[in-house]
Structures are given as C-alpha cells and as structure tokens.
C-alpha cells in the first residue's frame, strides 16, 4: 500500500450472474495518477467500473476512498466522484443546456447558462445549445455528456469508454482535459480498448 494513495481497491472479487469475472484484484491510486483498465470484450471492464463507482455492491474485498470504505460514506464519495458510463443519461426531449442543468443539479452543483454555453462551444456544440438532444447525432450526444468534465467539480473521475462514438478531435479534447485534471492532482480511472495517446501511471489488464 502506498503511503499517499487515496483510492484503494483491496482483494476485490467482481462477479456477475454467478460468474466470477475478477478474483482478488488489488490496486492503489494516488492523486494526480491515471489508471487505465484494459481487457477484451466481456472481461468485466464495465462491471468493474460500475463496482468502483458504487453502483454495484462489493461482496468480497474492499474499496476505500480517503481511507474509509465507500459504502460507509456513500454521499461523501459521490460528492467527489464523476462517473461517465456507457449510457449517457441524456434526455432526448430536453435541450443541451437543460440536460446539463439537471445533471449538474443532481450532482449538487450549478453553473450559469453562460458558463454551460461556453463549455458547449468548447466541446464543439456551439450553436446547438437550445437544440433538443433528439436532433443531435450519437457523437454529439456523447459530447453533451462529456461536457460534464468541464462543468462538474470532482476529485475522482471514473470514465467507462469515454471515447465511444466521438471523432479524433473529440478524443484529443477529452485527452487534454484528463491531463489538466491530473495536473490539478485529480485522479482518473479510465477504461478503453482504443489506444490511449497518453501514458498511464498504471495499466490493469483484466
């Protein structure tokens, strides 16, 4: 165990549908470190990510945040966590701005319309602020969800396949944002089967 690690996974078992996907998995993350999770389809990447985020219960082993198991301090942990899963949660009948507003509010945060607008501009959705999400392409919808990286304050990011359905410029954008988060002593756990154009501090191959 490293001395200054704030996120720890100890002897974790991950099972799904009575099948053990991961057995005795342990790793530590320090502030400012990038952890990459790799593995073939069906190896349990998403299940692991959902477990790390606290969406699935930990049956065997322990996940701790700042030294305390996450299930004992769910609200504190989720205050510090930004999770981006497979499905983006975008409501198709709401505009980009309305979507980001409710997402931020549920995270207990808020931003002005102007700030949200400028971030949408940044992620390449300038001019689409008041368009219904229904009218956007899959990649554009993904960019709306990714805008949370700029808008939401969080210490730990758990990103499950963040590059799905976005183009090369989008990948670069996310990559730069991840680097910036790391430089502010943020912590990133990221799963991808694309090439990661940056050096991970540790790679966990499932």
């Amino acid at each position, binding site marked *: 165990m490293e001395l200054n690690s704030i996120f720890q996974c100890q002897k974790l078992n991950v099972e799904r549908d009575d099948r053990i996907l991961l057995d005795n998995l342990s790793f530590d993350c320090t502030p400012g470190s990038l952890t990459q999770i790799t593995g073939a389809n069906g190896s349990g990447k998403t299940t692991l990510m*959902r477990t790390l*985020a*606290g*969406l*699935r*219960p930990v049956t065997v082993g322990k996940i701790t945040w700042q030294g305390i198991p996450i299930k004992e301090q769910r*609200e*504190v942990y*989720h*205050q510090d*966590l930004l*999770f981006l*899963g*497979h*499905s*983006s*949660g*975008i*409501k*198709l*009948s*709401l505009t980009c701005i*309305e979507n980001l*507003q*409710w*997402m931020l*509010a*549920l*995270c*207990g945060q*808020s931003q002005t319309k102007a700030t949200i607008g400028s971030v949408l501009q940044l992620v390449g959705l300038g001019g689409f602020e008041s368009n219904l999400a229904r009218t956007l392409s899959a990649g554009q919808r993904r960019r709306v969800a990714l805008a949370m990286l700029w808008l939401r304050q969080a210490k730990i990011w758990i990103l499950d396949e963040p590059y799905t359905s976005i183009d090369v410029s989008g990948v670069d954008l996310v990559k730069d944002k991840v680097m910036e988060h790391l430089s502010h002593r943020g912590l990133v756990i990221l799963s991808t089967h694309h090439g990661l154009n940056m050096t991970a501090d540790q790679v966990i191959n499932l």
Partner: protein
Amino acid sequence: MSVKTAQSIESFVALLKRDLLLASRHFSEVVQPLLFFTMAVMLFPLGVGPDAELLRIIAAGILWVAALFASSSVLDKMFREDFEDGALEYLLLSPTPLPLLVIAKCLAHWLTTGLPLVFIAPLLGLLLNLSFEAVPLLVLSLLVGTPTISFVGAVGVGLTVGLRRGGVLLTLLVLPLYVPVLIFATGAVQAASQGAHAYGHLLILLSMLVLATTLTPFAAASALRISAEMN
C-alpha cells in the same frame, strides 16, 4: 440551513422541474390516463344499463376502480425511461439522499397523472348520477388517495424496472396494495351520498398518505439500487 441541505433541496427541485418539463413535451402521455379513466367510466352505463338508481349506488366504486386502473397503467413510466437511458445512474450517484429524489419523482408522477383525474372526476360523477353532496367527497378522496397510489407504486416500479417485461407483473404486485385505499375512499363517498359523516374515512386515507410518503421512498430507493445492481 447547512450547505448539504440547500444542495439537497436544489437537486429535489431540479429533478421535479425536469420531469414536469419532460411531461409538458410529451403531452399525449399526460392525456392518455385521463382518456383511459373517462372511457372506462363511460363504458359502465353501457354495460349495466341506464338504470339511474343503480348507477348512483355503484358510482363511487366505478370511479375509484377506474382511477386505480388508470393510474396503474402509467405507473411503469415513473422510472422506466430513466433506467433505459442511463439517467437513473445520475440519481443513484447523486450526493443527495436517494429517498428524497424518489419523492421528487413520485410528486412529478402524481402531478402529471393523478391530479388530472381529480379535476375530471366530478364531471364523471355527475354522469353516473352521483348525488351532489357526494361530489366534494369524491374530489377529496381522490386528492388524498391518488398520491398514495403513486408512492406505493414507486416501490413496485423500483422492483420491476430491471425486468424486460415488468409491466404486467408490476400491476399484479401493486393492485393488492391499493385495496385499503379503495375501501376507505369508496366508503367516504358512499357515506357522504347517504348523508353520513365521512371524516373518519378521510382521516384514515390521510394517515395512509402520511405513511406512504414517509416509508415508501426508502423502500423504493433500496429497490432501485437492487435493480441497478443487476444491470
């Protein structure tokens, strides 16, 4: 007021506003249970015959059973869409306590499905020859009873939302739980139409609402977490 409380209230209001906004953009979905309710009630005189005295006696029962079916028919929608598009994860991962967010969902659901029934019920009551004195009681019983339906239903929705075809199972699960509401609500209306006091019935309905609003959000929250775990 602590920062945490202010934050929770903000999340609550945002979720309520979001659901109402969504309902306003899918207006046909708001109208559907209302039309179902109206149609179901209007079929009864055709089925049992136009005997005004008979209709007056069974009016309370017809209206309440139809209201139960109309509300149950749209119960599934409460969390289904959120579950399918991933928005439920934002609720589960919110620093705001989940039971509070469940209350916001139930409230939005009641405002868009239960409350409209309350407004149209007096008209349908008169159609069934319900006596004038009983109409205010019908409105009151629906006003107190329909939110209970939404809250109790939320537990069933939480349990079945992960199933592919949970709709029918949901109805089978929750309808028996509505029996007490049905008994005391129709009791109140019948008492009033016979000129008796209905306060007792109403108070029992009210206490059921208090119980439902305070207990079911916790049960529904746990059920939702279990459903999400299987995903």
